[in-house]
C-alpha cells in the first residue's frame, strides 16, 4: 500500500480516528504513525478538524467518585481512603472473618435477622488470602479488591454466577484490580438459585464468547447474612 499518497492517507487517518479501522490494520497504522512524521501529522490535522464536533455536546458532570478513583490509580490516595469508606479495610477484614464464623451460626439467622438479607462472598485463594469482597444488595453487587489482587494489565478478572440447576455460567461483570466497583445484577441471572461464584482470567474487556474462556482461578460460595 502506498502511504505517500496524501489522499489515501487522509482516508486512512479518518478511518483510524473514527474507529472504522480495526484489528491488524489499526496496529499497522499505529506503527506507521510512529515511523512517519507525515502520517502522524495527518492524523493530528484530522483530529483538529473533527474534535470540535465534541464542543456541541452538553457537558455531563461525572460522579465525584471518579476523581477519587483517578487519585487512587495515581497512588495519591490509599485505595481505601475515600471519604465514604474510611475504615473499610478494617471493616471488610472483619467482615471476611465474620463471614466464616457466621457460617457456623447461620442456623440462628431467622432469630437474629429479620431485616432485608444481605449476601456476601469472599473470593479467596487456596492459601486463604482474600482477593475480592463481594456483597449483593437488591440488584447491585458491590465488589472490592483487596491489596492481594495481582495487577494484570494484560487481562481482566471476570466474575461469574454458577446456577444451581447446572445451567451455563452467567457473567456478572469484570472485577476491579484496585479499589471498588458497583456491578449491576444482570436480568439474565434473576430468580436463578446460585450454587457459587467463579472468577476466570480473561482478555482485557472480558470473555468474548459469553462463557468463561480462560482458566477459572477462584470459586466462592455466597453467604446470606
Amino acid at each position, binding site marked *: 500500500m502506498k502511504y505517500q499518497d496524501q*489522499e489515501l492517507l*487522509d*482516508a486512512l487517518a*479518518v478511518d483510524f*480516528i*473514527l*474507529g*472504522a479501522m*480495526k484489528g491488524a490494520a489499526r496496529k499497522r497504522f499505529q506503527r506507521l504513525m510512529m515511523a512517519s512524521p507525515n502520517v502522524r*501529522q495527518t492524523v*493530528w490535522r*484530522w*483530529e*483538529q*478538524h*473533527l*474534535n*470540535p*464536533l*465534541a*464542543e*456541541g*455536546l*452538553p*457537558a*455531563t*458532570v*461525572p*460522579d465525584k467518585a*471518579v*476523581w477519587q*478513583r*483517578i487519585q487512587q*490509580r*495515581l497512588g*495519591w490516595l490509599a485505595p481505601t481512603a475515600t471519604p465514604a469508606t474510611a475504615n473499610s479495610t478494617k471493616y471488610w477484614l472483619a467482615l471476611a472473618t465474620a463471614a466464616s464464623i457466621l457460617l457456623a451460626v447461620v442456623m440462628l439467622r431467622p432469630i437474629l435477622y429479620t431485616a432485608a438479607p444481605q449476601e456476601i462472598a469472599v473470593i479467596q485463594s487456596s492459601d486463604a488470602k482474600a482477593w475480592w469482597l463481594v456483597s449483593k444488595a437488591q440488584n447491585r453487587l458491590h465488589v472490592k479488591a483487596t491489596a492481594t489482587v495481582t495487577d494484570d494489565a494484560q487481562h481482566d478478572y471476570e466474575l461469574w454466577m454458577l446456577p444451581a440447576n447446572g445451567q451455563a455460567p452467567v457473567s456478572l461483570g469484570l472485577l476491579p484490580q484496585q479499589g471498588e*466497583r*458497583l*456491578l*449491576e445484577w444482570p436480568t439474565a441471572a434473576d430468580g436463578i438459585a446460585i450454587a457459587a461464584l467463579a472468577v476466570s482470567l480473561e*482478555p*482485557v*474487556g*472480558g470473555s*468474548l464468547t459469553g462463557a468463561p474462556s480462560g482458566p477459572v482461578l477462584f470459586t466462592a460460595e455466597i453467604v446470606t447474612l
Partner: protein
Amino acid sequence: MEQSQQQLLQWLYATAQGNKQAFEQLYQATSGKLFSVSLHLLRRHDWAEDVLQDAFVRIWHNAADYHAEKGSVMSWMISITRYRALDLLKSRRVKAEHLDISEPEHDQTSNEVQPGEVIGLVRDKVKLDDCMQGLSDEHRQSIQLAYFNGLSHQEITAHTGSALGTVKSWIRRGLTQLKRCLEA
C-alpha cells in the same frame, strides 16, 4: 476563547511538571465534556466512567508529550478519551442494535451543562459548523454517527437503511469536502 486555551495550556504544563493541583483544575474544567464524549460512544455510565478514569491517568502520565502540533489541549484530550473508548467499545462488542442512537439532543444531561466555553475549541467549532452545514444531510449524518457513536460503516447502514458502499462513499466524500472547506 484564546485565553481558555491558554489557561488549559498552563494547567497542562504544570501537570507535566508534577503539579497535582493544576491537574485537578484541568480535570474540573474538562471532565464534563470528556465524560459526554465517552458516554456518547459507550452508552453505559459505568464503562464511560472507566474510560474517563483511564483517560485522565493517561493525561497525567503523558502531559509532557503534548505539543501544539497535536492541536489544542482540549482536542488532544478528546482524542485520548475517544481512542480509549473505541478500544473498550471494540473489546466489549457493543452492538448498535442495543443502543438508542436517536437520543434527543436535550435530554436530562443537558441540565448538567457546565459553562462550556472554558473549552477553547469554540473558534474551530464555528468554522466546523459552517463547513458541516455545507454538506448534504446524508454526508453529515454519517459523519456524526461515526464520530459521536463510534458506529462502524456496517452499523450505519442499519441505521440509515442504505447500502454499505453508499455509506462508505458518503463518509469519504463528506470528509473530503469538509477538509477542503476547513483548510480553505
